[in-house]
């Protein structure tokens, strides 16, 4: 459906996808009204540094923001902050707001993001127990991140491990609890899990895998103790919870928009309502390089879908759909990931993990589908392109460090 005569675009949510949609709409020549409705107090900002440089105190708050407040004024974008959208009326094409009133749209972009999965144990509401998702969360946590304090992190995913690295560098006593038998179990291979577990241990963090948190206990309402399912106890001044996120699909679902682990979109980020788009963590999109639909929790995905939605609204050609990519900073390690490794049937190691500079390639039926590259940008960047071309590479070629990644890429079929 052609929406190029649209005069009013409303964006629900104020994260990376929302910021991108604003910028792309103006870049593609949209001159109508843009209203951004965000439930946080802050203008759109970068989330990745919250568990990295910003948490560590190495990045000033103003550097988190994509654009200064003046930009939204200059671009005539109405930012409605600290306000929750409460409903979407698709026949009237309005979004209702929590303090009353509503906003009309010709095109709607839902970028409601995701929320941390709640810790399902007794004591989760004690003072000192935190999620790590928003700027406001970090503002609460940071003053407590003092040398010598005992920090228990629940969940050894990227957020948990990044926070563990920051906390160790700040001199906290860190224990990470993971239910699975290895760290990063949901997202990477055993070889990468083993590497990161070794690294964190070497840096002085205690990693407990196969450890289930049973309950949290405290004194005067403040957490003091974490009790595990095996009956053991850990002293805790701070508990950080990083056990995954859930997409915020309720607004869309209540409005009858098709959802299935995310708001379902086509390649243009359009939902089953032609006037409604979805982008970022909350959306389940066609993963064109993998022949399936899925939800990605990444900066790349938020940017790309924000652009796709803006282009579709403006009737512009579809922007390129890149190979999915992601990164994580822990200590002096830069992990760069290209592709989606799910359903791999073979791994190939290139380089030596001991040297802290190596990569693991993931193949499926001989085709390169993903790479995890530690301090190895060439492996990451070359793979990003090779994955998009559906390249087939022999394991012995990928592991041959006497050949550069440029040479290997040139030999791909």
């Amino acid at each position, binding site marked *: 459906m052609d929406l190029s005569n649209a005069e009013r675009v409303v964006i629900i949510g104020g994260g990376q996808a929302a910021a991108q949609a604003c910028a792309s709409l103006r870049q593609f020549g949209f001159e109508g009204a843009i209203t951004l409705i965000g439930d946080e107090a802050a203008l759109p900002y970068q989330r990745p540094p919250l568990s*990295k440089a910003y948490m560590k105190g190495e990045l000033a708050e103003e550097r988190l923001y994509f*654009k200064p407040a003046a930009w939204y004024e200059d671009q005539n974008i109405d930012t409605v902050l600290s306000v929750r959208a409460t409903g979407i009326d698709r026949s009237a094409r309005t979004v209702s707001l929590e303090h009353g009133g509503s906003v009309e749209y010709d095109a709607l972009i839902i970028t409601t993001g995701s929320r941390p999965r709640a810790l399902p144990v007794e004591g989760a509401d004690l003072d000192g127990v935190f999620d790590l998702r928003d700027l406001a969360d970090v503002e609460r946590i940071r003053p407590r991140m003092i040398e010598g304090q005992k920090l228990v992190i629940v969940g050894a995913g990227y957020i948990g491990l990044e926070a563990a690295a920051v906390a160790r560098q700040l001199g906290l006593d860190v224990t990470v609890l993971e239910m699975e038998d290895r760290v990063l179990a949901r997202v990477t291979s055993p070889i990468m899990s083993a590497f990161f577990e070794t690294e964190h241990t070497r840096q002085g963090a205690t990693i407990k895998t196969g450890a289930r948190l049973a309950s949290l206990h405290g004194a005067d309402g403040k957490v003091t103790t974490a009790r595990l399912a095996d009956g053991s106890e850990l002293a805790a001044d701070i508990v950080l919870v990083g056990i995954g996120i859930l997409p915020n699909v309720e607004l869309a679902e209540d409005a009858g928009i098709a959802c299935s682990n995310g708001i379902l979109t086509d390649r243009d980020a359009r939902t089953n309502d032609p006037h409604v788009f979805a982008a970022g963590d909350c959306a389940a999109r066609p993963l064109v390089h993998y022949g399936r639909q899925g939800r990605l929790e990444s900066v790349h995905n938020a940017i790309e879908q924000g652009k796709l939605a803006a282009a579709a609204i403006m009737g512009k050609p579809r922007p390129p759909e890149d190979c999915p990519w992601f*990164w994580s*900073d822990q200590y002096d390690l830069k992990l760069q990931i290209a592709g989606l490794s799910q359903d791999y049937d073979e791994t190939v190691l290139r380089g030596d993990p001991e040297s802290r500079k190596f990569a693991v390639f993931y193949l499926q039926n001989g085709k390169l589908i993903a790479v995890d590259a530690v301090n190895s*940008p060439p492996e990451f960047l*070359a793979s990003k392109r090779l994955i998009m071309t559906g390249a087939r590479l022999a394991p012995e070629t990928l592991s041959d460090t006497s050949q550069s990644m440029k040479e290997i890429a040139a030999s791909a079929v």
Partner: protein
Amino acid sequence: MAKIIYVDHEGTERAIEAANGESVMEAAIKNSIPGIDADCGGACACATCHVYVDEAFLEKTGAAEDMEQSMLDFAENVKPNSRLSCQISVSDDLDGLKVITPESQH
């Protein structure tokens, strides 16, 4: 403060005032300078803020470090004066710096 001049691949110049300590990439993004994507926000993770540094400023901007250089090796149309603009920190010294943005960051 330093004046930074961004020249796009068609030769159009755009000058802005950048604050000390911010990167040449951040100053571009905040001022909506076209031609710089900076998808990762300055983490040296994506190589989408590639610029060519005007020869006159090469000494002042210094050379790329290892991680940056290995990212640049895979950028399109890389030249000896290529840099990732997220890795160039603005200072008074760089007043008048001219950088040229490539036709594409991908």
